[in-house]
Structures are given as structure tokens and as C-alpha cells.
């Protein structure tokens, strides 16, 4: 928040738009992200005639789904002023358990999948306890749990994750329902559920409260410790789920399968308008951020330029998006519109 805004003195003024400011500010951010994404998809027709259509969007949504899953949890942790660096390892854990416990068998799927998610969630609970009860900085705590979990995966698999996920999982990843790939339907359901949980559930409300002002949340009598642990647990749960989906998609697990999701998950959350300092953000923004990043990657991969240039362009576009999505830009817009109205 800018100093100016904070210095803003409230008055009992007739032309007062403060009441709607927060909502519309977020809506504008989300709108701009999706608009940017659509513009990029349509614009990419220049690069390839196969681009700019539903097929491309489908591929993007499909690939973005993994990032969306884990970014949701990351977003919740960031909301309570934390950061989850363990998601890479927990994604790996989910994937490794999927292939080793299922071992290519459909039989016990209904028991094993929940068991995997429980194990992953426990990792998050451990991180959450460290952060909220033992007061270890989130950065160190989640980094440490991440290293530990990774090391355990390494030790238990002796370096080579065995087995396959259940064939039915791999089939599901390739199946279509009502003309849409099943993973995209899963994504839609996940986004709807995640949005409700973060923005409209009692738990979500408490998350915002704790993220907004932990001391006040304590004074008000909120179970801050439980709320915080919950955020880390959900993050690990989502990471585990991402791991299962990835293993099903790739029909196997590797020990570095989660690495590509750590920084992007943070980037998606931040590009989506959440504050890294906690207490502010919207899941739909994160979803937009994840899709934007994936779209960018897809378009860049089709661009026949050197990897160095690709990376530069990617960074440049992210920087540009951030500049456009700044709160100040929106504020300036509001001021301008406000003065126009007068």
C-alpha cells in the first residue's frame, strides 16, 4: 500500500467510492490478466497458424492446471504471510508415492490415493507447526522440510522411483468428457472449489484475518495457530495432488518433477495481484497468473529464437505485466475517472 493512501484521511464525502474500491480493484486486476492472456493467444496467430484457436487454449489450460493446483496452496500460505518452499519436494513425494504404492495397479486406488494425500498433508502440518508454534521463519522451515522430504524420497527410492501409476489414472488424463479433456474439467472444479474456499468460506475469512493482522487475530480469539497450520497443510495437500496428476500425466515419477513449479507458483500468485506480504489476494488472480505464465511459455516455445532471448523476453513480459497491474495504475485510473465525473 502506498504511503499516500495510508495517509488518506477519511471524510464524509458524497462522492465516496471507497466502499467499492477493494472489490473493483481486484476485479480490474483479474480482468486485465485474463485480457492480457487472451490478447497473447490471439496475437500468437502471427507466429503459427495453428495458434489462436481453441486447441491452443486447451493445451494451455491442460498444462496450466498443474501450476494452478500447486499455486492455490502457495497462495494460501502467502496469504498468511508465509512462503512454501517445500512444494517442489512434496510434488515429488506425491508423484513417487503414486508410482511406488500403486505400482501400476488399479486395485486399491480408492484407498491409496487418499493415503498419499494424507502423507503429503502431514508434511504441510509439520511445516505449519514449525512456523506457527516454534516460530521458525517460514522460509527456513519450508526449505528445511523440503530438503528433508526430498532426501527421504531419494533414500527410499534409492534414486530410482519404481513402478507406474494406476493405468486408470493415465487413462483419465487422456480421457475426454463432453468434448473436453478430463483434466480441464478437474481444473474447472478445482478453481471453483478453491475460489469458494478462499473468498467465501469461514476458513478463508479467517485466513484473510490472520494474514491481515496476526496480532489482532490473536486478540479477537481466532485460532491463529490452527489457521496457519491449515494453510500449510492445504498447500502440501495441493502439492501432493499436483504430484499425483503429474505422475499420471507422465506415466511415471522422477525425483525432480516438482522443481519446475516452485518459482512459477510464487510468480503466479504475485502476478495474480496477491501481496507477498500477506493478507491480500484472490485465487482467480492466481489462476490468471498461472495461465498467463503458461501461455507465455507456450508461445515462446514456438518462437524460433535462442534460449537466451526467450528467457529475456519472458522476463520482460513479466516485468511489463507487473507494471500494468500495479495498484498505482489502477489508482490513477480511478482518480482520472473520478475527476472526469465531476
Amino acid at each position, binding site marked *: 500500500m502506498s504511503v499516500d493512501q495510508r495517509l488518506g484521511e477519511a471524510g464524509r464525502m458524497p462522492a*465516496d467510492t471507497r466502499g467499492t474500491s477493494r472489490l473493483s480493484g481486484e476485479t480490474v486486476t483479474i480482468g486485465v490478466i485474463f485480457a492480457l492472456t487472451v490478447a497473447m493467444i490471439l496475437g500468437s496467430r502471427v507466429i503459427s497458424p495453428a495458434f489462436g484457436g481453441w486447441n491452443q487454449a486447451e493445451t494451455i489450460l491442460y498444462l496450466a492446471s498443474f501450476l494452478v493446483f500447486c499455486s492455490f496452496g502457495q497462495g494460501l500460505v502467502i496469504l498468511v504471510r508465509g512462503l512454501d518452499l517445500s512444494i517442489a519436494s512434496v510434488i515429488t513425494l506425491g508423484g513417487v508415492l503414486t508410482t511406488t504404492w500403486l505400482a501400476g495397479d488399479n486395485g486399491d486406488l480408492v484407498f491409496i490415493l487418499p493415503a498419499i494425500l494424507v502423507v503429503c498433508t502431514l508434511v504441510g502440518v509439520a511445516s505449519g507447526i514449525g512456523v506457527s508454534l516454534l516460530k521458525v521463519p517460514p522460509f527456513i522451515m519450508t526449505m528445511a522440510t523440503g530438503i528433508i522430504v526430498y532426501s527421504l524420497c531419494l533414500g527410499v527410492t534409492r534414486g530410482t522411483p519404481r513402478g507406474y501409476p494406476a493405468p486408470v489414472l493415465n487413462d483419465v488424463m487422456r480421457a475426454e468428457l463432453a468434448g473436453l479433456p478430463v483434466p480441464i474439467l478437474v481444473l474447472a472444479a478445482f478453481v471453483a472449489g478453491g475460489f469458494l474456499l478462499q473468498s467465501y468460506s469461514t476458513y478463508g475469512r479467517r485466513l484473510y484475518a490472520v494474514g*491481515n493482522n496476526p*496480532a489482532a487475530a490473536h*486478540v479477537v480469539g481466532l485460532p491463529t495457530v490452527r489457521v496457519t497450520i491449515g494453510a500449510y497443510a492445504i498447500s502440501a495437500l495441493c502439492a501432493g495432488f499436483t504430484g499425483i496428476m503429474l505422475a499420471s500425466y507422465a506415466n511415471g515419477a522422477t525425483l525432480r518433477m516438482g522443481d519446475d513449479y516452485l518459482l512459477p507458483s510464487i510468480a503466479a500468485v504475485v502476478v495474480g495481484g496477491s501481496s507477498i506480504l500477506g493478507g491480500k489476494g484472490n485465487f482467480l488472480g492466481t489462476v490468471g497468473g498461472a495461465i498467463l505464465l503458461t501461455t507465455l511459455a507456450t508461445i515462446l516455445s514456438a518462437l524460433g529464437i535462442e534460449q537466451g532471448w526467450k528467457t529475456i523476453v519472458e522476463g520482460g513480459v513479466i516485468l511489463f505485466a507487473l507494471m500494468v497491474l500495479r495498484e498505482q495504475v489502477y489508482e490513477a485510473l480511478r*482518480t482520472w475517472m473520478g475527476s472526469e465525473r465531476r
Partner: protein
Amino acid sequence: MGSVAALAVAGLSKRYGATVALRSLTMRIVPHEVHAVLGENGAGKSTLVKILSGAVQPNSGTIELAGQPYAPRTLLGARRAGISTAFQELSLLPNLSVAENLLLPRVSGTRFWPEAAGSITRRAEAVLKEWAVTDIDPVARVEALSLAERQRLEIVRALSHRPRLLILDEPTAALPDATWLFRQVRRLTETGVAVLYISHRLSEVRELCQRATVLRNGESIDTVDLAGVKDDQIFAMMVGRAPERAYPAPVAAAAGAETLIEARGLTTGRLRDVSLSLKSGEILGVAALEGQGQLELFRALGGVGTHEAGEVRYNGRPVALTSPRRALRAGDGIAYVPEERKTEGIFGGLTAAANMSLPQVPRIARGGLIHHRLDVAATRTAAEAVSLADRYFGFRVSDLSGGNQQKVVLARALMTRARCLVMFDPTRGVDVGTKQAIYTMMRGFVADGRAILVYSSELSELVHLCHRCLVIYGGRIVADVGRDRLTEEYLLAAAHGHGGAAPLRAAS
């Protein structure tokens, strides 16, 4: 008045986005004068301060400083022009030392190599001494200071820049005793300096200031000679209507009321072996000078702090107040209203309705889901009890004025449905209208058999509000004053430890 004005402001206005904070402000301050600016929270006082100190720039209007046009773009620019400010929200850095805070932003006075710590300390010591502050160690970190000490430091810092115009924004909010301040201000005005003084405490203003400019809704209503107007007239100018009586007589507590909370031998921090009992239908006041252990007492009862020894019973049964959550669930509930609104009270990013509904979120949710309309429906009654207008429900709390923020905090305490409220200085820094609303709420609260324990730094408030008042000095209760003998003089004497002034009664 014929001389050149120290400060002349004309037609000043300021907009934040679509929000108008200052509409049109005109005022004039002459040298040697202490000029008060009066107005409710949100009238535009703070915006005026920010503009004059260079923190924000006005949209229109002119300012002249000693006859010269003045348009500061930075705080340092304002300082160079001769304006320095002691801010209401204390602009001190807790992680720096007293000396460093005092000398910011140019702590080190040397050019090529940082000045020796000892030399900095000596310079700071000299400044403190010049303004008659001898009990603050320049080496101490500000976070180790009490609120009153910080306030004095803030003021000394403003004084030390040798301004032509000094702005004091609520300088006594945390000062239990204004004598020191007044002495320094008078010393300054004797040399020709003008002072712009903002305070909610009219008695202080009358003591110190000659004239006052009254603001309402961002406009300057009038500048008056304080000697010639009555309080009621000033209030009328501030709120735009005739005020209600400041303190209606309290309703007598019902006879034979049951004891809700009973504390025995509480000991923690400065607090030594304190016992008290809180009865239903009672507003029990606590009076004390700054830092006598009252904060520890309130925090212990609210479950925010801990206590080393002692026992608390609620409805006759012992309760463990180890966290605010436990306190809320103990007996019929204890809700704590914290002293620091900004750090422990409000959730700035949430709407007012969401702030208020927080304690009841699981109950008002439908199918585990909650949204703005449910918040509003559930909090309407509590908001009415503190006279918070409906239209603020959807506002982000950080966008509200201090008074409305305090109303939100109090409404939330009501939402907890606790039978006892433990309120630490609930009217600090709020305007008259809000104070009235708070008093009404407190009376209504205890009228149906609930109880309030309240500390206030304004003795008059306690005198008019409480059924009974405890006085704490040196960590112990030194007096338990009944309604019949409750006067400001009596409380003041007891608060200074003059136990002889009153027969010391054991807490019942």
C-alpha cells in the same frame, strides 16, 4: 493582527482519488500565537497537517509562510522552510535509539566518515536537555520506551528543528500530564514562533490556545477567540448541530448484583497482588498514571498477557485465561478491547462488516460459506449499538477514520457475545461524537446485567461513566472509590500515590 501572518492558508483542497479530504480551508496564524484546529475525526485536520509538513501536496489553494509562498514537496523542504511537526501517529522508529530518532535523517553530522557514537549521543543529550527531558536515555532503543516517553520524544524532535511554525497533532493523546509540554510551547512562543495545535481535549485547548479554527467536512467553518465562546458553541460548530449533553448521569447499578469476575492476588510485570471483583450491571473504572501496571492487569484479564501468580474466577469457578480465545470461552466470556487499535484492533484489509462479524463467522455462515450480505445482516445490531452508519459496512477498515475504526472494534467486541468487556482506553484519540457513541454503548451494555472493566487516561470520563473506580499506583490497588465520592481531584490524588487523601479500602 496587523503584522505579517506566520501562516496564511487560503482555499486549500485535497482529493484522494474520488475522495475529498479537504474541500476549502482558509486560516491565519500570527507569530507568538498558539492556534488550535478543532474538528471531528475526518474533518480534515490530519490532511492539513500532512500538507503543511510536505508529506502530500494539495490540489488547489495557496499557503503563505511569513508572507512568502510556501509549497513544500518533501518533509525536509517543509523543515527548511521552518515548519516542523510532531505527528499523531508517532513517526519514531522503534528499532533505532533515542538519539538516532532524534537526529534523523542526518544522524551522523560528519561528512566522510560516520560520526562517533559517543558524539551523536552527546548531541542528542544536549537536545533533550534543552527541552527539559532528562529521564530518557539517548542510548535506549525506542521500543523500550513507554508510550508517554515516545510522545515526548516525538515532540522534542519537532521542537529541536527550531521551527517558525510548530505543528502539534494530538500531542497529549498519550501524555498523562501536559505541564511539561505547555511549558515548552510557551517558551517557544515567547521567541515569536507560532504553534498549530490539534487536540480533542477542549480544556487543554482553552488553557493553551488563544484562537481556534473549527473544521467540518474538510471546510474551515470559522476562526474564533476561545475566550469568547462556550464549549457547546464549539461542539455545535464541529458537528453542525447542537450537541447532546456530554455525560448523562450513569444509571445506578442494580442492587444485589451477582459477582461475575473475581480476581485474587494477580501478579505480573509491575502488577503486585491485585484483587478485584466485577459485578453484573457495573462499569468498573480503573485510574492510574502511565505504566502503573494497569496494562498488565487488563491484558492478563483479556488473556493477551500472562500472570505469574493469582487466580481468576468467573461465576465462582476458576478459569485459565491463557489466551484471548480461552478468555472468550471462560464463564460467560471476557472480550478484550486492546489499547492499540492499529496493531491489535483492526484488520485494515477487510471490510468493516467482515471485521465486526469475525467472532461469529462460523455461526452466521450458510453451509460453511459466508459473504458480504450475511456479514451485514449479522452485524447490524452491533453496529447500531455503537452508532456506526450502515454505509460504512462495505468500506475497507483502513479507509475509515480513527473514530469509525474504534466503533468497528467495539462492535466486534459486542459480537463476541461475551458478558464482560475489558476495555483499555477505548476513547483515546477519538472525536466527541464517537465518544458519545461509545458511552451510550457502554451504558446499554451493562444495563442488562453485563459488566465492563474500563481504563481511561481521561479522569473526567471515569468520573462520569463509572459506578465504581479502582486506582492503581505502583502495581497495587490503592483506592476503591464508590460512585458517591468519585471526583477528578480525588482520583488524581490517589493516582499520585497520595493514599492519605483518602481512606484506603480493600478491594471487595
